[in-house]
């Protein structure tokens, strides 16, 4: 009955055999005639770090706010720790939330910010003191307790915001783009801190961001969203290596994936990828379903999976002719832009390799690590 310490009424079971920590079922939200969320289903396991990733307007914040209870869905249910909380107020859902603008109470000290909610709830002051002390210790806020938010740096403010969620002694933490207001360096630092926090505390965390680097580094699983629909829900490496559709493929990875327009042509032992004047055998490629000749496709291959020049390299296709267009040095690597059969591709090479514009080169593709997408639907083939 109590498979993970609570009564699970959500009706769902995760891969590990236990009930989900958070379960979203059939959730939809419309503003008038505009549908922002389309019948979403999402199950998050206990202690999992789940990232909702997508561009502005894809519905990720909306989904988070619905889980939190700050927005009402037009349809659907939310279960937290097995309990149906669809009609509960945010404070009764067992969640803590961290906001993009930190939303600290500006006229109160850090200590009061942390304890205010607890005081309002009527907790005994000994308990409050203990919780505040614990949060301060975990987040290194002890020297800052008597300061006001205006006297704190962005990174410190964000830690206080996290602390405010921490003192609530809840199991689920929600993060709404918490690092977006920080500069790049601070973002990188706090990213590491959040990951460390998750390792130490082990709580379920749902994290919204538009930054794919944050998603890749922090997540146990990523839900890539677009226009209110979850495009793919998988572990980061799976999303990176086997994106489910053209959109996900183009969104993840920096520098971004190359896309080549082509067509499937018959061949043996495997079908060929037919460009205008080049044909690449797809021997190493593992399709979802058998490929059909004549299909218009987009061939997606990441810059690091192109090989320039000849030389030993297993797993690559036969070399193809190309001309260097320009070179972008990026420090340890360089990005070489090539013209191949009338299309433009980028290849990542080590900086030690030198290339000059208009230089002819041979290009090889690691087809086994590439992706094929139907040109019309964008789905992975």
């Amino acid at each position: 009955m109590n498979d993970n310490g609570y009564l699970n009424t959500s009706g769902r079971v995760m891969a590990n055999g236990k009930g989900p920590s958070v379960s979203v079922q059939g959730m939809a939200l419309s503003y008038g005639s505009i549908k922002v969320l389309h019948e979403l289903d999402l199950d998050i396991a206990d202690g999992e770090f789940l990232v909702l990733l997508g561009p502005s307007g894809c519905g990720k914040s909306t989904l988070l706010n619905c889980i939190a209870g700050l927005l009402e869905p037009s349809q659907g249910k939310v279960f937290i720790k097995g309990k149906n909380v669809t009609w509960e107020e945010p404070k009764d859902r067992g969640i803590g939330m961290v906001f993009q603008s930190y939303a600290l109470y500006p006229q109160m000290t850090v200590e009061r910010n942390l304890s205010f909610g607890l005081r309002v709830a009527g907790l005994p002051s000994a308990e409050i003191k203990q919780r505040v002390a614990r949060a301060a210790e975990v987040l290194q806020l002890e020297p800052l307790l008597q300061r006001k938010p205006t006297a704190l740096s962005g990174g410190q403010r964000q830690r206080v915001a996290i602390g405010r969620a921490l003192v609530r002694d809840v199991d689920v933490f929600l993060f709404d783009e918490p690092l977006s207001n920080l500069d790049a360096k601070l973002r990188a630092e706090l990213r590491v801190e959040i990951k460390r926090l998750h390792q130490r505390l082990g709580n379920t965390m749902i994290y919204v961001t538009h930054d794919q680097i944050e998603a890749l580094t922090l997540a146990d699983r990523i839900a890539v969203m677009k226009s209110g629909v979850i495009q793919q829900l998988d572990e980061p490496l799976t999303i990176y290596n086997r994106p489910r559709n053209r959109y996900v493929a183009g969104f993840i990875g920096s520098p971004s994936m190359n896309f080549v327009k082509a067509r499937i042509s018959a061949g043996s032992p495997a079908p060929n990828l037919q460009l205008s004047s080049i044909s690449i055998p797809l021997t190493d490629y593992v399709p979802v379903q058998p490929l059909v000749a004549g299909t218009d496709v987009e061939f997606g291959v990441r810059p690091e999976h192109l090989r320039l020049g000849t030389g030993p390299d297993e797993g690559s296709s036969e070399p193809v002719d190309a001309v260097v267009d320009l070179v972008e040095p990026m420090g340890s690597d360089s990005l070489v832009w090539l013209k191949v059969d009338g299309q433009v591709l980028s290849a990542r090479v080590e900086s030690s390799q030198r290339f000059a514009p208009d230089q002819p080169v041979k290009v090889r593709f690691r087809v086994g690590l590439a992706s094929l997408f139907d040109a019309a639907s964008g789905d992975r083939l």
Partner: protein
Amino acid sequence: MAIAETLLGNGSAREPSGPKPKSSLSPRNIMLYGTLIVVAVYYLLPLYVMVVTSLKGMPEIRLGNVFSPPVEITFEPWVKAWATACTGLNCDGLSHGFWNSVRITIPSVIVSIMIASVSGYSLANWRFRGAEIFFTILIVGSFVPYQVMIYPIVIVLREIGLYGSLWGLVIVHTIFGMPILTLLFRNYFVSLPVELFKAARVDGAGFWRIYFQIMMPMSLPIFVVAMILQVTGIWNDFLFGVIYTKPDTYPMTVQLNNIVNSVQGVKEYNVNMAATIITGLVPLAVYFLSGRYFVRGIAAGAVKG
């Protein structure tokens, strides 16, 4: 999973799903809208009383009270207020004051806005040494009670021979409109992209050309706000009207006060109320027509108070 289903039963009592059901008639809503409506009544009551009183005949007024609606509607008080009410000197009603107010307001609005907008423009884009000092004086001066500056202005106007004339009053309104209007225009021009101005200067345009061909066309909203502020403020003014005019050039507000408060003998309440409404019609019309701009004008004019 089966256990969960057993506990709930299949299709048991309604499981929470979708938006939380809430009735429009919740206690919260009742209190909220109730309070709002009660307060609205308090605000509307005087207007109602004004209208209702102005449409009754005098016998009916004496019998009833201020809140009772008219049994017999008559527009006679209105006609009387406009055309024949006596203000001590002459008996041609409010119409005299109305046209005076018109003759005061229109030039005052135009002159004050023209001068203030050019001054604001000068302060925003063509700063020269000492300009800020005068501007600060203006702003500080807007807090100073008018009473302190009234008599010196009387002297100045007498010297240039405009005391008691409409144009004298126009000058007064311009003077006292300067602080808030200049601030308004200056802040607005400062908020316009400076690249536009720089590009024009590079092209060789000078002070006046830039003002008329670039700044003014882009400033329509702020001109509207300024006009609303000035039309309302000047039309409603009483203090300056009473000091700087002669009975012949009294604006409507002064006349109104005379009609109501300085009449001996029988008080004709219905005529008084009709006269009051007529005086309030112009600014009210401006208010209702301008909506959003009025609020913006308040926010800006609020700096002066």
